[in-house]
């Protein structure tokens, strides 16, 4: 026994001695080349250095300006704490922005071709085609509301969805590679607005409607508005495994023609319910040219519109029981079924509201009437108690209406033109005030009362923004656990905030520090958005995402997220002809394509497979064929294929369109298309 111990001791000593002989190895990332020096930081609590003070004075910066700069500045190589996923508005794309630096990191091609990513120029064409409407290419979109996928009511960083209001479409983006994987066109509605929102575990992606219309894009005269025009909410089933919405397990519910607006999914206590507001309970049909009140007046006559309470659990049961109609082959639970099966309830909400937002605990719902200076807070408990007591009136369609007094928890006067509300971790709510051009911070009650020093349901403070704020967002501010820290005001007008760039001005994202309590919010940074009018955005803690550095394996097809059977490996490059069908199998690596000569004939149909066989981070290659409208971005490991008809003879230099290496210019090749009788000439012969 003693001997055994001795053996162990000797061996241990030897091994330890051996290890200590190992030369010092470089640990972790090498020191950044240039910059990144530490030790120059001004100690906390000390004043500015003389140099910094002189700069601040020369530039006319106030102490607040200096602290704002210090709160947002990111030294080279230092990463932001948060990522903002913002709608790209009319650009049809999604913006990815770092916070607090507000640096634009990426514009993800979604509904609209995006040349840098090759999106629509040889890559992603199939996805873009999914967004065609009755065969018509629709290559722009009015993107409105991104929704990050959630697990347990919290962002999980896996997927993000976004809608196209103009054409009622929804796109799915995979956050492993930040690429759009799918576009679905709503078969029932021609436009939407209350999209996208997700249920707490992303079981469903919600797509609420907007302007009432005959279901299924049918024709009906406006005289038949009350009987034929309908609202709609669609529940797209999400298949997380496949990373796609699953139309085969999705359904819609017919709603009254009240112009449903925004929706939000219940969470925690209210999980299983979905809430959508509306703003034309008057059912105005416009016609200013005929002397009728214009929509803006007609839809604003009543004192209240209707919040829609939708029992999604019940609706899913009814759908699964087959109790639905179909419109364009898509299941739609009829309005009558929704009433009969206790799926749908209404409750009044003050004047033309915009937005219904569920508090982090799921207990309260906040609605802002655009034309009412209050936010109205509803209690989910009271709603359920009222439904339980069967205490309601009905509207013209027979839908139960819960009285406002029975379900209201509080009203808070916040200011003029209140729109959207989000939350922080200190028991505060933040409401955008369009007319005041301000953000109101107000105190929540209920379980939030203990988190802040103020009385519940009170305006705490306001901060001016520039100008005409629409949505706002706080860090993870619509989840079950908001982070606080930052708020972004999404301003519609910039007016004088930036250098003039002609009559079309950028939008203005303003970053606001909300970390302190009470009357202590600070405007930090203005970020111009010069690509469209983003409506909504969400801010997620960056460490919740785990995107790929490079595609997992060589030959990876991002459209299937697996290795393609047509992936091309080094040494297997070739050109295969089968009649007029030509297949090119190509690899790309610094600094050459293989093959460098591709010789085909006019009239050939070409399928081109290309694999970037690089494994190095950031070693992306481009690939373009001039004259044929082809341009690809092929990231390390990625496989892409595209097709074209070689109808134009000549010599075409294909080349790498990403500056990949010192010999990037040499990364080229010749596509020789020999003139020949084209297929139509052959047929004539």
């Amino acid at each position, binding site marked *: 026994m003693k001997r055994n111990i001795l053996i162990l001791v000797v061996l241990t000593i030897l091994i330890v001695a051996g290890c200590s002989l*190992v030369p010092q190895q470089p640990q972790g990332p090498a020191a950044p080349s240039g910059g990144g020096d530490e030790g120059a930081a001004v100690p906390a609590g000390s004043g500015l250095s003389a140099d910094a003070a002189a700069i601040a004075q020369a530039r006319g910066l106030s102490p607040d300006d200096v602290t704002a700069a210090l709160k947002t500045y990111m030294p080279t190589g230092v990463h932001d704490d948060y990522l903002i996923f913002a709608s790209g508005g009319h650009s049809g794309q999604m913006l990815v922005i770092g916070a607090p630096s507000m640096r634009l990191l990426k514009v993800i091609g979604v509904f609209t071709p995006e040349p840098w990513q090759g999106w629509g120029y040889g890559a992603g064409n199939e996805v873009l085609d999914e967004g065609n409407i009755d065969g018509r290419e629709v290559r722009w979109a009015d993107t409105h509301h991104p929704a990050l996928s959630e697990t347990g009511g919290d962002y999980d960083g896996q997927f993000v969805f976004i809608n196209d209001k103009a054409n009622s479409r929804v796109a799915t983006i995979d956050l492993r590679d930040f690429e759009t994987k799918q576009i679905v066109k709503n078969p029932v509605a021609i436009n939407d607005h209350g999209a996208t929102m997700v249920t707490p575990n992303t079981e469903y992606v919600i797509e609420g409607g907007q302007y009432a219309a005959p279901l299924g894009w049918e024709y009906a005269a406006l005289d038949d508005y009350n009987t034929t025009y309908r609202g709609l909410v669609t529940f797209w089933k999400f298949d997380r495994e496949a990373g796609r919405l699953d139309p085969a397990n999705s359904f819609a519910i017919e709603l009254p023609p009240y112009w449903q607006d925004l929706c939000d999914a219940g969470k925690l206590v209210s999980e299983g319910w979905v809430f959508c507001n509306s703003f034309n309970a008057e059912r105005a049909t416009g016609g200013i040219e005929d002397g009728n009140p214009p929509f803006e007046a007609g839809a604003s006559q009543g004192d209240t519109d209707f919040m829609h309470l939708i029992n999604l659990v019940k609706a899913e049961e009814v759908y699964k029981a087959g109790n639905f109609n179909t419109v364009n082959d898509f299941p739609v639970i009829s309005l009558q079924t929704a009433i009969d099966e206790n799926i749908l309830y209404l409750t009044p909400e003050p004047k033309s509201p915009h937005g219904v937002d569920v508090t982090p605990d799921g207990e309260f719902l906040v609605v802002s009437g655009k034309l009412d200076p209050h936010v109205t807070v509803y209690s989910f408990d009271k709603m359920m108690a009222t439904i339980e007591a069967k205490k309601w009136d009905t509207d013209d369609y027979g839908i139960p209406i819960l009285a406002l007094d029975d379900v209201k928890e509080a009203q808070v006067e916040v200011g003029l033109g209140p729109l959207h509300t989000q939350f922080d971790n200190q028991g505060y709510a933040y409401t955008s005030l369009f007319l005041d051009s301000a953000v109101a911070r107000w105190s929540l009650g209920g379980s939030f009362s203990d988190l802040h020093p103020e009385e519940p349901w009170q305006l705490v403070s306001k901060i001016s923004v520039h100008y005409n704020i629409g949505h706002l967002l706080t860090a993870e501010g619509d989840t079950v656990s908001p982070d606080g820290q930052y708020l972004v005001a999404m301003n519609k007008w910039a007016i004088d905030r930036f250098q003039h760039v002609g009559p079309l001005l950028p939008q203005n994202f303003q970053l606001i520090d909300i970390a302190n309590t009470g009357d202590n919010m600070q405007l930090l940074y203005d970020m111009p958005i010069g690509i469209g009018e983003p409506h909504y955005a969400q801010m997620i803690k960056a460490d919740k995402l785990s995107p790929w550095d490079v595609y997992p394996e060589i030959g990876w097809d991002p459209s299937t997220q697996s290795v393609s059977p047509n992936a091309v490996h080094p040494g297997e490059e070739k050109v295969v002809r089968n009649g007029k069908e030509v297949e090119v199998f190509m690899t790309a690596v610094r600094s050459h394509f293989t093959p460098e000569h591709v010789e085909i004939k006019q009239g050939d149909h070409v399928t081109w497979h290309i694999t970037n066989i690089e494994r190095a981070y950031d070693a992306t290659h481009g690939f373009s064929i001039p004259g044929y409208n082809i341009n690809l971005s092929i990231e390390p490991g990625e496989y892409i294929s595209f097709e074209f008809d070689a109808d134009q003879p000549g010599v075409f230099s294909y080349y790498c369109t990403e500056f990949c290496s010192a*010999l990037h210019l040499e990364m080229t090749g010749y596509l020789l298309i020999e003139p020949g009788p084209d297929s139509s000439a052959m047929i004539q012969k």
Partner: protein
Amino acid sequence: MMAADKFENIVGPRAPQEELAAHRMRYIWPTLCMAGAAILIIISIFLPYWSLVLHAPQYPQGLVVNAYVNHLEGDVSEIDGLNHYIGMRPLGEAAHLERSISIFAISALALVVLAAVFIHSPWSALLALPAILLPPVFLADLYFWLSNFGQNLDPKAALSNAVKPFTPTILGEGIIGQFKTVAYADFGLLLASAASILILVGLYLQRRAYKPLRDKKSAE
């Protein structure tokens, strides 16, 4: 009779029971050292013997290649990709024979060291010699291949004008183009080196224990 004598000469004497009882540790130490060395050699097979780190501005994390006795790990394809610019062959083409027999050969020489435990004559040193020489032989072979690759660059390569044939640094720092290279002996080679020292110590202790017995026997 002659053959049996010869065999006994090679195997060497055994310690008598009374001698073992009196000086147990004297006879156990050599066994411990040699057996320990054999274990270290076996462990070393699973560790890199040699590593090379390349530093350049566009590779903030550096590029690493770890050479095991039978394969390469790390950023090999990236390094190969860079090497093609200067016309160097892919690293995977080096030392085919060595890599294909390495596991078998190193296991065998570790077993032979174990066998040497039971040989109490100068012959045991001969048995242990291959294991003792493993580290220098590895380095010599590495040097052969590095210089073979570095001296035989493809003259048609893109950067053949910029980089003349060279012998990469085998241990320590070097510079090629914008790359600073750091090459060092890794855990496997260090364990093998420790094993060499252990074997030498073991052989010395073995000789110290059994030489008196052998001398006594030949005196008889």
